[in-house]
């Protein structure tokens, strides 16, 4: 295997550990310099790697979002805010934002409601439920291209199973992927098929961890299932639900592969998301500068989402500490 990094990094860690002399230190704390050395040893390789392969590309993207790439001469020219002003005046970009927000908010809302409902459903111990739980976790492990393929088959206008069912049930023929106003909702449905299990797994784990006494007390007080769920269970599940929702929203916001596999952005850009727009402009049209500007709009929005998420995680950590 001609792999540079594997021969580089592994021995580095190994020899570093071996060369550390075993000294008997009676004190519990190492000296500050030694501690700094240890921190550097543990953290340095990871940090260095990410600086080269994550920080640098992000900074480079920012820089290139102010430039234009000339493919014929292979040169970059500084154009200031032109890419940004172009995209903010572009009708297509507005449409892309709308699609991305639909997918992020409508999609995640559906997934949170269904995922929580599933968690509550599986909380009643049914025989065979373990197998079904195993089945519904599978969609989120799949290559999105194949998810796209599966659903393009199911929704095929001529012979797809779902259209056949639709006709039998009297809905008639539905242009799931060909009707521009419907296609984005098809994307929402397929995304929900794949990712509702994610919300389910998180909320269900939280539900399993809740102390039984709470529910017993509720039953003794004469509350029925509906009241117990509404006033006891859901508030207790809220931290997990919020976490799953924010996590999912950040992921849905950057959806690329499902669009690529299911609709390829069409019909006529009706399902193009920000990621897809950046991808198309960058890799298909070689408009690297413009694509970088689109992706930087995403980076900034993602940063906001991440800040919110970490606030949620912080809250959880404080919960644990007390």
């Amino acid at each position: 295997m001609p792999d540079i990094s594997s021969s580089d990094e592994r021995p580095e860690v190994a020899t570093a550990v071996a060369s550390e002399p075993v000294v008997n230190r009676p004190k519990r704390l190492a000296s500050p310099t030694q501690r700094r050395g240890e921190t550097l040893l543990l953290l340095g390789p990871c940090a260095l790697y990410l600086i080269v392969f994550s920080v640098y590309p992000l900074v480079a993207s920012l820089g290139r979002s102010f430039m234009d790439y000339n493919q014929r001469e292979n040169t970059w020219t500084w154009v200031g805010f032109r890419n940004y002003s172009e995209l903010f005046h572009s009708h297509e970009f507005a449409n892309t934002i709308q699609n991305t927000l639909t997918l992020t908010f409508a999609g995640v809302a559906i997934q949170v409601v269904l995922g929580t409902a599933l968690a509550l459903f599986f909380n009643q111990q049914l025989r065979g439920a373990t197998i079904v739980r195993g089945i519904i976790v599978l969609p989120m492990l799949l290559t999105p291209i194949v998810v796209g393929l599966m659903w393009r088959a199911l929704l095929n206008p001529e012979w797809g199973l779902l259209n056949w069912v639709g006709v039998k049930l009297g809905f008639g023929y539905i242009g799931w992927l060909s009707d521009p106003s419907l296609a984005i909702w098809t994307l929402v449905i397929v995304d929900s098929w794949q990712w509702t299990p994610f919300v389910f797994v998180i909320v269900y784990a939280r539900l399993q961890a809740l102390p039984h006494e709470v529910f017993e007390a509720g039953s003794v007080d004469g509350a029925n299932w509906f009241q117990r769920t509404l006033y006891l269970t859901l508030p207790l599940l809220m931290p997990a639900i919020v976490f799953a929702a924010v996590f999912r929203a950040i992921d849905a916001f950057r959806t690329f592969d499902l669009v690529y596999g299911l609709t390829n952005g069409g019909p006529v850009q009706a399902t193009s998301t920000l990621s897809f727009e950046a991808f198309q402009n960058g890799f298909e049209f070689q408009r690297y500068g413009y694509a970088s500007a689109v992706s930087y709009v995403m980076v900034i929005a993602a940063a906001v989402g991440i800040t919110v998420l970490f606030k949620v995680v912080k809250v959880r950590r404080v919960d644990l500490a007390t």
Partner: protein
Amino acid sequence: MSTRVFGRIVSYIVLVLIAIIGAAPFIYLLILSFKSRLDIIIEVPPTLHFNWATIKENYSTVIDEGHYLTYVKNSIIVTGIATTIGLVLGVPAAYAFSRLRFRGSDTWSSTILSFRFMPPVAVAIPIFLMIHWVGLANTATGLILPYIAFTLPLVVWIMIGFFDEIPREIDEAAMIDGLTRPQILFKVLLPLVRPGIIVAATFGVIFIWNEFLVGLYIISQQDKETIPIAASSLLTVESPIEWNIAATVGILTVIPILLFSIVVQRYIVRGITAGAVRQ
């Protein structure tokens, strides 16, 4: 009493429906992969019968003529190496974040974790240009290098949670015995966080196995493609004409990851809930 029985029956019907919704797309694709090109179009809805000659033809077209095994081999090499290096770099970092208080440690850990949520397109173009510039396009290394970077935040994110669960007293006792931090990590803690390492590895493997946005333009030579890259070139053409072959490619693409996920199923659930439900 009868309402309770009725409720149970309804619950089981719902359970079966959930199973159908979850599994139907797989089964449908599987059935399509057993059909001839013509049967898919005329047989609506498709019925399950095994025409071995057709099945053999579909699968041998993909496996023999489509070089399926080459893609599997490429995927295994890239996934295996990138995940391993990701763990070697990420586990010590997670340990440091869990145990050591140093200047800016919170900022550092949030920065690394936030890469987990960065849109891949934002780094895809510079990485693509970088890999081409150093001449690693169309090599396994060219894929492995960026994939390690994508795995690291996952590994660190998951492992911090597992290290946090181990009482600090263990570290302190080892330090009294004169062990340094790296020694504590490698000799004492690694065996204790083994479930965490399996969880992190599982997620690294699934992520890298499925990745193709960055890979798509780094690899343009067919014999170097990984499974999703190869599948994407075949499956995203407007509408495939040979749906039987497309379905077979789809099934052969998901089979490895399905087998893998059955083996590591309980770790998958632990990985998803890491960070959400830290006990």
